[in-house]
């Protein structure tokens, strides 16, 4: 049995947001290292708490890091600012990596992570907007985030506000019809202030998305629904930064970014393995995964 999650397992330190105008290479290197630190911390949370969704956590970490580290106009001291950007995590089951990301960027005290999944903790298995600063939507059931994000983007439009709305969905989640209802609305209202990012790891809880209910051709479908579609390596911080950070909005259309990712990335025995949807690493697996992440430290010359 693993020991109970405690403060001794907290390795995360606050990550500075790169100053405006910092050289791109420096920004990307910093994001890469922050994402590595977030994975290390999340791995410990899941291992010692004995529960979590580490596969999806690790496929989403890089998108989360780039959004919070360099894209979203949000800050811990202005979580109620009406003019903040909005981010909706639709795949609410990756709450672990989301909490760690929020802690890395100062929305939560790092010490609070030690309460993850414990009785009465505000850091439960799915994020609650009423209890976790920076969380815009209480999610968990799939297919909720995209309609909410469309409403957020429409509110910005009604306010003539430049604020942006981003939503991260899973790919299996795109099987929910509510997403397609929302996508019709987004293009009907011409919401070019909305960016949908799909964490396209190709796996859902029980099998591949294609074997479960084929999504392909996802890009064509999104295009047919009126979106400007891009595809990107969802673990390439530079490519994500360039794409998500760009405020260009082609043709007044909402954006649909297919982020190609790997569930469990970059851990050798987790990557692309459907079993790691919500499997908990045992002591040996925890040690191995840590060692693999340590080997990617900048001093070790590695890269995710």
């Amino acid at each position: 049995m693993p020991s109970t999650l405690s403060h001794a397992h907290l390795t995360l330190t606050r990550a500075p947001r790169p100053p405006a105008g910092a050289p791109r290479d420096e920004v990307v290197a910093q994001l890469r290292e922050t994402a590595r630190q977030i994975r290390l911390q999340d791995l410990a949370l899941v291992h010692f708490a004995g529960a979590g969704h580490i596969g999806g956590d690790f496929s989403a970490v890089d998108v989360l890091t780039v959004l919070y580290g360099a894209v979203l106009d949000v800050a811990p001291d202005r979580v109620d600012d009406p003019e903040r950007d909005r981010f909706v995590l639709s795949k609410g089951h990756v709450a672990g990596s989301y909490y760690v990301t929020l802690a890395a960027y100062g929305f939560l005290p790092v010490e609070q992570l030690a309460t993850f999944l414990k009785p009465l903790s505000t850091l439960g298995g799915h994020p609650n907007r009423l209890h976790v600063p920076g969380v815009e939507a209480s999610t968990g059931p799939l297919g909720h985030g995209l309609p909410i994000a469309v409403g957020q983007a429409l509110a910005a439009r009604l306010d003539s506000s430049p604020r942006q709305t981003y939503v991260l969905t899973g790919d299996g989640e795109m099987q929910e019809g509510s997403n397609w209802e929302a996508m019709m609305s987004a293009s009907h209202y011409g919401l070019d202030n909305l960016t949908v990012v799909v964490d396209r790891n190709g796996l859902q809880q029980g099998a591949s998305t294609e074997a479960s209910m084929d999504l392909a051709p996802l890009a064509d479908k999104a295009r047919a629904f009126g979106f400007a579609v891009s595809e990107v390596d969802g673990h390439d911080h530079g490519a994500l930064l360039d794409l998500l950070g760009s405020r260009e909005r082609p043709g007044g259309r909402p954006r649909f970014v297919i982020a190609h990712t790997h569930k469990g990335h970059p851990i050798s025995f987790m990557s692309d393995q459907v079993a790691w949807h919500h499997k908990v690493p045992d002591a040996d697996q925890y040690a191995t995964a840590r060692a693999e992440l340590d080997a990617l430290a900048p001093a070790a010359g590695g890269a995710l």
Partner: protein
Amino acid sequence: MTQRLAPRWLEAETFDCRDAFVETLVALASEDPRIVGVVNDSVGSSKLDAFRTAFPDRLVNVGIAEQDMVGMAAGLAGGGRIPFVSGAACFLTARAMEQIKVDAAYSRNNLKLCGMSPGVAYGELGPTHHSIEDVAWLRALDQLVVVVPADPVETAAAIRWAAAYEGPVFVRVSRTPVPQVHPADHTFTPGRATVLHEGDDVTLVSNGTVLWRALAAAEQLAAEGIGARVLSMASVSPLDTAAVVQAARETGALVTAEESVPRGGLGGAVAEAVVAHHPVPVRMLGVDAFAPTGSAGYLLDRYGMSPEGIARAARELLHRRRS
């Protein structure tokens, strides 16, 4: 209708509560720019034409897509707006139930769900379009205030209250014509019942389109020397438990009557309070099955909620208690 109905009911002017809803919403929106309407191609069925004319940019039509409608309303609320989501109660509640649970209630978003033409208002269109389950479903949700107004005055009062309240609300907006039963200065307070007719022999608890029928029943009972207290209970959740318990203690028997399924609905709520605090006989009237073809008025009568039917239920209950 029975010929025993007092002339005041036979001659009373009747109202479609949607008119009071729209008039109130337009007035509120004129004062508060945060208010927006959200519809599922339901401008006509919600009678929202006047709102669309006054605020064309603040009426969001999502098409026939109820999950998206409630989810988007949650997002609009997150963007500082006060959305009044308006659609036929049957589709709004059944189709978007999980969004109502998670995006409205659990998230405590400041949005207002306005269920049009609830109960058996769609009459002959049948149980696919009836919304008799909505009260029971939504009463099960924590954090959601569930309101069933009885007349145009109470509908307007509930909408005004909902706009000022910071949190999720469900309001039924009736289309079946009803007479005015509350005084013009009636206000809505969650968890607060109003006594509309005094009596100490039995209590009739009702709301929505059935409330005037309960009042007419009380008048028939009064003519027979039976004192029926009538509790107007628009606030189903939270319930005015104190008023129910006081009625149980002072009158010793209760009849509930509603245009919805009583199990889990107003009847269920009243029975729970009575059983927990002061057990006495309770008779629950409501539309407790998928209804056969018929108009709304016919169906309410058929399910025992004509004034005579409600009076009969009260008499039977009293007889049972005395025997």
